[in-house]
């Protein structure tokens, strides 16, 4: 049986928005296809070799925890880069997504340094952007549309930071409904090589099974074993997906 390995970074600190659900989704979808799917937890102060993993995941957290994580992440900068170069796919949500950029400037003017792996920066603001949201996959990023023909993505936004993208990076989704990265340029999330980030909670992959498969397939291709993943029965997931789209349309 082929082994698929996932690293979940800071599950104890970046955990308040239920983003761990993404790891459950990735793991289960591989298991249902007959793979042995392993998840390892990595947190502050622990050693790790991130390049050994097919997917590296990190979620969102509270401000206090995010500051602790920021310090630890900086010490793993080289390791993160090595992982991306050796073909790991990295998925980051909300707070972790912000930390992949150059910096986060808080409301009080304090500057939290990021890894600079995504060409973007974030500025704090007083108003939180909260609510159900939807976007459409940009055709340039990844395979975009899978066999199910779905290209929309649904999620739940809850952030006060506004993220602005530089030249070296493109938005992962185009906003259909909701605020997106900063409420003004209609982009949501970012992608640069094998590194992905987005504000969408939900958890992101629970109601977007096509996106989960897209990432899994890319991860395998990046690691040198491209496969066409078999189709799963996604009736429930897509019903939940359509429910959000419908809810946003009738609002």
């Amino acid at each position, binding site marked *: 049986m082929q082994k698929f390995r996932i690293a979940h970074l800071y599950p104890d600190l970046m*955990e308040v928005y239920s983003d761990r659900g993404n790891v459950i989704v990735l793991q289960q979808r591989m298991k249902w296809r007959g793979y042995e799917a392993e998840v390892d937890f990595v947190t502050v102060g622990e050693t790790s070799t991130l390049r050994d993993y097919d997917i590296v995941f990190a979620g969102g957290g509270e401000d*206090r925890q995010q500051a602790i994580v920021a310090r630890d992440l900086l010490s793993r900068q080289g390791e993160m880069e090595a992982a991306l170069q050796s073909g790991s796919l990295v998925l980051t949500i909300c707070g972790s997504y912000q930390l992949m950029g150059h910096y986060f400037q808080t409301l009080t003017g304090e500057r939290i340094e990021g890894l600079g792996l995504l060409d973007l920066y974030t500025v704090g603001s007083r108003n939180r952007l909260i609510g159900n949201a939807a976007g459409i996959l940009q055709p340039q990023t990844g395979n975009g549309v899978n066999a199910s023909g779905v290209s929309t993505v649904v999620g739940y936004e809850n952030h006060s930071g506004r993220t602005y993208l530089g030249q070296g990076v493109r938005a992962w989704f185009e906003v259909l409904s909701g605020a997106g990265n900063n409420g003004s340029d209609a982009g949501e999330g970012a992608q640069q090589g094998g590194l992905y980030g987005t504000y969408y909670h939900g958890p992101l992959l*629970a109601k977007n099974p096509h996106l989960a498969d897209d990432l899994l397939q890319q991860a395998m291709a990046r690691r040198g074993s491209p496969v066409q993943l078999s189709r799963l029965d996604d009736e429930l997931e897509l019903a939940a997906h359509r*429910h959000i789209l419908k809810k946003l349309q009738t609002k």
Partner: protein
Amino acid sequence: MGNLRPRIAVFAGKCVLLLLRLTGRKGTTLPGAVALKAAPDLLSWMGKQLSGRVILITGTNGKTTTANFLTNLLKLDGIDVIHNTLGANLLTGIATCLLNGLRPGTEQVAVLEVDEATMRHVVPKILPASIVVTNFFRDQMDRYGEVDHVMELVGQAISLGDPAMKLILNADDPLVAALGAIHESVIWYGIESTGLDTGDDGDVRDGRHCLVCGSQLKYQRVFYGGLGHYGCSFCEFARPVPTVPIMDVEAGLDKLQFTIWGMTGTLTSKALYNVYNAAAALIGASMMGVSTATLSLGMQNMETGLGRMERFDAAGRAVVLTLVKNPTGFNQALRVLETETAVEVQFILNDLYADGTDVSWIWDTNLERVLQQAQITRITASGTRAFDMAVRLKYAGWSGQIDVQPGDVQAVKTLLELPHGGSGPLYILSTYTSLYKVRDFLLNYKGGGAVAEV
């Protein structure tokens, strides 16, 4: 003048209340809203009337149950109690309850459950004799924001209270324990000994890092969530020694048993968190002068109240209804399912404002464990977000049929009409906005299913 305006406001509010009743509505907030408009200082006036006889109850989970327990204990002692029974815990709901129940010149006691974010508006006006803080968990992030923020709000409220005020605090919750640093007079309660298998649930631990220095907290014991026996691995911060220790918490058939002040009490609920609620209520009652004899009597068969592990007999079918609104409470409810030899379960997940519009918290629950441990005969996913619930169950490893029935009352009705030989009692875990609708339905099912005797 200063005295007249509040009285006029109370009169205006009562008129609105009467009008609402005449038109057949309950009116838990509108009368208070009108009265507060007429006299913005109404609460201060009410606080003076009730001087020294108000207990506020706040915290994430257990507010309603603790307030119910406390009210029952006070009433048993013959005390006239004002209490916001229907859980209307915002400013307007509190004003409504007081203007409806207050009789100036008497020795009434007020037991008020107060929303965490509303506390700082209530405390400086009412100047309560005591505040109970049950716990802090992650809850409805779209509405309350992060746990740190909620703690700050409650801390602020406490600092606006009378310095002589007594805090009744849960020592087992590190987030609540941190409040001990800001106020002199504290009564701590906590579970000292139990033979229950409380094992680590993999619950979300909102407080697992020390609030003083940020280092990791070390737990010698975890009861649930972040509650347990803990201490900081680096600084001095540690679980306060309980002033009122809860001893020998044990499970009986359909019951929990515990000992406080050398007296043994029982709960008609199998959920461990109710032991904390009972302890807080007993301390509050004793502070208000309830006699030891009454306390000892009142702690027998304590009942948790509306929609909190409440049992019904729906035309011969045993049904248990309970409110779930965040991962910690949900996991505790799931633990109770494991105690049944066979059980059918229905989840009603809504996403209206009062439920929290973000339903992602269901991914932080330990459904994986209950699907393995409990003898579940049928699962139904209902509510406005029935499909989200179904997806969660699927990924938690439920390989059987997941019955998706959006809606609430109709879905319950459909379930009750299915054959259920040997499928065990039906547990309904519901978010807030369906809870009372389903409860009313169960009470009236086929000519009235009286609340079952336990």
